[in-house]
């Protein structure tokens, strides 16, 4: 990751610089006009959030069962980045919905899962901040349980009528929209990877610093 970081950072920067051009050139959608463009930002942030959640849960399992600090570092990094992308999704979503549905919020499956995952990982961060010693293990459990909770939230809420645009929208996007859409998704995922890597590195440095303090203690 260390060697690949700078090249990937450059790629990500270029992608984010070029993305507005692609989005501007994408065809106008006839009913939503300019508002539809939020999709290029909104949907990729959810992709990024889910990926970060998965990273956090995997890091958590790794840490729980091996006591390996690296798992914990990955878990924290994933959790923080997930909360950030989740906040982006939760801001852009209602902006679109207010215009498209006439209401900013609906209790449908996707929105609820998104909100609950966001809350779960905010709880994760609160726990780490205020939980005191031992909360690293517990928070790993929270990440794991948070992921396990997703299908249940999905089925529970699915039993209400769903009005969110269905997943099938993505493959059926008209050709002109498809390319910028996947371009943005890929850009966000790349950004997510870089952020997680940076955050995990910060956590690793912190551990190293702790070790140095300890070594200093010893002499």
């Amino acid at each position, binding site marked *: 990751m260390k060697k690949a970081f700078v090249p990937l950072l450059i790629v990500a920067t270029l992608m984010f610089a070029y993305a507005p051009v692609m989005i501007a050139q994408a065809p106008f959608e006839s009913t939503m006009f300019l508002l539809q463009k939020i999709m290029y930002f909104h949907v990729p942030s959810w992709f990024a959030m889910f990926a970060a959640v998965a990273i956090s849960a995997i890091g958590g399992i790794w840490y729980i069962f091996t*006591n390996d600090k690296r798992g914990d570092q990955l878990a924290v990094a994933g959790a923080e980045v997930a909360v950030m992308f989740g906040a982006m999704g939760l801001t852009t979503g209602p902006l679109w919905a207010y215009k498209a549905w006439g209401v900013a919020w609906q209790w449908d499956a996707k929105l609820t899962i998104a909100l609950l995952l966001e809350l779960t990982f905010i709880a994760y961060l609160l726990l780490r901040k205020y939980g005191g*010693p031992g909360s690293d293990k517990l928070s790993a459990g929270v990440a794991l349980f948070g992921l396990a909770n997703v299908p249940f939230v999905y089925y529970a809420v699915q039993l209400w009528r769903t009005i969110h645009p269905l997943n099938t929208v993505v493959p059926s996007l008209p050709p002109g929209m498809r390319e910028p859409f996947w371009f943005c998704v890929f850009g966000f995922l790349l950004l997510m990877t870089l952020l997680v890597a940076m955050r995990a590195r910060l956590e690793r440095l912190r551990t190293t610093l*702790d070790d140095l*303090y*300890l070594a200093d*203690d*010893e002499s």
Partner: protein
Amino acid sequence: MTADFDRVEAAEVSRNFGRRRAVTRVSFSVGRGEVLGLLGPNGAGKSTLIGMLATLVTPTSGTIRYGGRTAGDAGPDIRARIGLLAHELYLYPELSAHQNLEFFAQLYGLRPDGVVGAALESAGLMDRSHDAVSSFSRGMRQKLALERALLHRPRLVLLDEPFTGLDDSAVTGVSERLRRLASEGAIVILATHDLDLADGLVTRVAIVRDGKLVSDEPAGGGLRGRYRTLVGR
């Protein structure tokens, strides 16, 4: 029980809590019949060390071996051979002395009929056995807690400040009990900051300061002087 052992060996054991090093590279070996006194001022890392010996706290580095096996190899088997009297008493204050002992006896897979009576007798609490522990004095609770920790006749007996709240005659009683345990083949490790009480009971003294083992030698004359020089306070 196949996990019986004759020695407990700590090799380069350390434990950190974040940036704080509670125990630093402690090594020692204790065998049957010995009473090792872990002496040191408050906050020296004695309780963490006891916690690690009890398998409740995992060392950050280093290993503790119970006759060649670690807690990772044979957790429950080793735990069945450890008796711990910690700083907190591990008793349910709402339950009676009898109920507490009965519960823990069964948790260790013992038939409660015999052991509970013997333990109550030993603690001198026969006539109060059906009173709630919350009504006991600190000294009575301490004696009960000791008997609770010894119910299953552990091979390794760990005690963290066992003399807290005991009057002079009770201290003598407890010391006598520990001496007898050691002579019957138990490994006794006791942490205390009180030199006077440890003197005469322990067969070996390990002095701990700032998480480090600064001395480990047979007990004997001049203990007080050495302790003062090493701890320096």
